[in-house]
């Protein structure tokens, strides 16, 4: 319908950029929406068990931050549910009837999260301490459930199942088979663990900065200890789940695997590239260490299994963004490995009954770990979304066929990008104001060296 190919490309690029920006922005808040309720619950539970007012102060402080982030997250989530129809109406006309089930279940759980968030956030003085603590459980549970369902929909885009195409029409729809496609288990657990880890390291990071500024009290120590307890358990699990997810990709998205692992030509007994940054003109070999046979072993459980190279796919069927996919993947795995090491280090250095390591280098590493963990989540989504291109539904439906025919995407993209900059600035400013307030209801004695 558009005679000028350049205009058509920029139309698609504008639409993709807009939904990509929206998802990256939303992810930050969604991750905290999943992770913070767990942190608040543990802290408040510790208060009920020990009676230590520091725990209650932490739970209250986090609940105030949660209130702001939840409002922004709910708003940015609404944007995405609209944008699916406004930007990719042809994709939704095609897929809505297949993956509607996880979307509506996600809606139902998000409903419960919002209802109990209202009760929890405004109920500190209206409910008994135990009832208040219990009202936090539905928040934590429904947050995980809604993340679970929405990610099954994404898993379907990667490994589509549960429908047939007959004469260009969707038939034989099986919503359960679509939802429980081969990627559901690995992708959802990778996301939920990722959310918990980013939140935990994020909290550790905030309080490590506080300690670096000289506020070495029980309030800061307890926050870091709680965060790193959760992180130390989950980080190794996340690495294992990541490996399983890699196998899912290997079995169902060969072109994506080739882009992720930087495999250009088909190799039998393929080695695993560690490093191998795809810089222009270097053919992916910059700082590369190749571990022989490891990729074949990891991906297909056999040291000599062939791994198909990216060049063997028709040009129209492979991602035009392969170097970025590879870079994002290296970044994610690198950060993840570093976080596992940091968690182990903290607990190995912690003596029973005393504080964890509080030297400057440890605190600086913790301070950096929070932003890094969030970055790893964002990079993981870049790997998924860019790695699947040019498909919106892998092997079945192209992104370019899903975009709207309505004009004006350049304008809406600009408007939403400005909106996100504004929202980010406002949110940061508000959270800083919350953090700058004195800790309420906490006597100085409670803050002494604990």
């Amino acid at each position, binding site marked *: 319908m558009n005679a000028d190919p350049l205009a058509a490309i920029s139309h698609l690029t504008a639409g993709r950029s807009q939904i990509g920006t929206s998802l990256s922005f939303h992810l930050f808040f969604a991750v905290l929406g999943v992770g913070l309720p767990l942190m608040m619950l543990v802290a408040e539970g510790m208060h009920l068990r020990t009676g230590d007012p520091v725990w209650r102060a932490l739970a209250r402080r986090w609940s105030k931050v949660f209130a702001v982030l939840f409002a922004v997250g709910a708003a940015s989530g609404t944007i995405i549910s609209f944008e699916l129809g406004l930007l990719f109406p042809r994709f939704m006309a095609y897929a809505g009837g297949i993956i509607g089930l996880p979307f509506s279940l996600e809606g139902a759980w998000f409903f419960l999260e919002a209802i109990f968030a*209202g009760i929890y956030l405004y109920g500190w003085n209206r409910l008994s301490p135990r009832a208040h603590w219990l009202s936090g459980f539905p928040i934590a549970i429904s947050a995980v459930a809604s993340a679970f369902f929405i990610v099954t929909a994404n898993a379907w885009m990667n490994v589509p199942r549960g429908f047939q195409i007959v004469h260009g029409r969707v038939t034989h729809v099986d919503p359960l088979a679509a939802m429980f496609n081969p990627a559901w288990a690995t992708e959802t657990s990778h996301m939920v663990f990722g959310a918990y880890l980013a939140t935990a390291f994020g909290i550790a990071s905030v309080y490590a900065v506080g300690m670096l500024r000289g506020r070495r009290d029980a309030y800061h120590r307890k926050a870091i200890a709680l965060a790193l307890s959760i992180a130390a358990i989950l980080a190794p699990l996340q690495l294992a789940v990541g490996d399983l997810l890699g196998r899912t990709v290997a079995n169902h998205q060969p072109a994506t695997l080739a882009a992720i692992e930087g495999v250009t030509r088909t190799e039998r007994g393929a080695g695993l590239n560690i490093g191998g940054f795809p810089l222009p003109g270097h053919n992916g070999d910059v700082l590369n260490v190749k571990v022989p046979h490891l990729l074949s072993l990891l991906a297909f459980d056999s040291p000599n299994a062939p791994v198909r190279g990216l060049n063997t796919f028709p040009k129209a069927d492979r991602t035009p963004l392969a170097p970025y996919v590879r870079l994002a993947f290296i970044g994610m795995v690198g950060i993840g490995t570093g976080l596992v090491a940091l968690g182990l280090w903290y607990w190995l250095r912690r003596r029973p009954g005393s504080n964890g390591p509080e030297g400057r280098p440890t605190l600086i590493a913790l301070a950096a770990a929070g932003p890094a963990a969030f970055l790893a989540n964002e990079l993981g989504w870049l790997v998924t979304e860019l790695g699947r291109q040019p498909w919106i539904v892998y092997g079945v439906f192209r992104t370019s066929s899903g975009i709207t025919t309505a004009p004006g995407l350049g304008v809406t993209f600009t408007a939403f990008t400005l909106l996100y900059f504004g929202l980010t600035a406002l949110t940061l400013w508000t959270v800083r104001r919350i953090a700058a307030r004195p800790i309420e209801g906490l006597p100085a004695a409670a803050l002494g060296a604990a």
Partner: protein
Amino acid sequence: MSLAALIAILLGLSLTAYAIFAGADFGAGILDLFAGSRDADRTAIAATIGPVWEANHVWLIFSITILFSAFPAAFSALGTKLLAPLTVALLAIVLRSVALGLRASPGTTARARAMLSKLFGVASLIAPFLFGAVAGGLATVSSSRHLGAPLGPHVHWTGAFALVIGALAAALCAQLAASFVALRMVRSGEGRLAERFRLRGLQSGACVLLLSFAGPAVAAAAAPAVWHRLIGPALPIVIVGIGAAAMSLLAARRRRYLLARGASLLTGASVLGGWFVIQAPHLIGTRLTVHTAAATHPALVSMAIAGGIVLLLVLPAMYLLFAIFARPELEVIE
């Protein structure tokens, strides 16, 4: 009744819940805009909607998921034909949520609060106005009984009838909010504040009554297909709606706060119900109906099950939320 019709009714109920409960939250923003420098009014408004507005808002997300899961072709056409007004409404919803969330958080300075209040108010006025205009525009292009219209018609959301419905939506939101806040203030023993919101209720209620006569009148002149449906199958609902609007005014006049709130909720539900009857079974235009736009049977079955789960889980939880905060004490905002 077919499964598609059943899910269309579920969609209608979900949209109605959104219109009257989230409508009251939008109205709270409109009242906030007219509260001038009276901080007591703002506190009363914030205390009334604080715990519930996020949950009320989810009815919209739920409605959208029903629409795109059960009627994907209609969702697709709506998104394409209404990109501009829906994008602006979306921006308004986002800005008002964020402004309200940030304003309620501790440590905000007075100047920032004033700025956020203005943003909250203006955005709260724009969103229901645009939703009303979109509904009016959809009714105009979807109420005709003639066949052979184009598959995706142009939606005249800036037509005279659409604009009147937009204004009606905004006035109704303000009235709903006033009736919620007034009732809460009476129960908290805040007589002076209750009086002020009763007055707001009377003012916005008068606008609602006026516009609910103006709507059909404009339809008679500018949207004859809508007019024929209004005086045809939708007539009982129109009568109930206008009766409820009058009743709500009368009840507010006599300080029967609970009755006033009930009647304005009924007014809102009637407006939505009337809209559905005017254009049923058409979703957008006259060719995409509840049946022609429906997804496959298994998809509809899964939607019906999901809808059942929502009713079983969400409604009791929603009741709990409203019950906990119906207790008559003003929230201390820390």
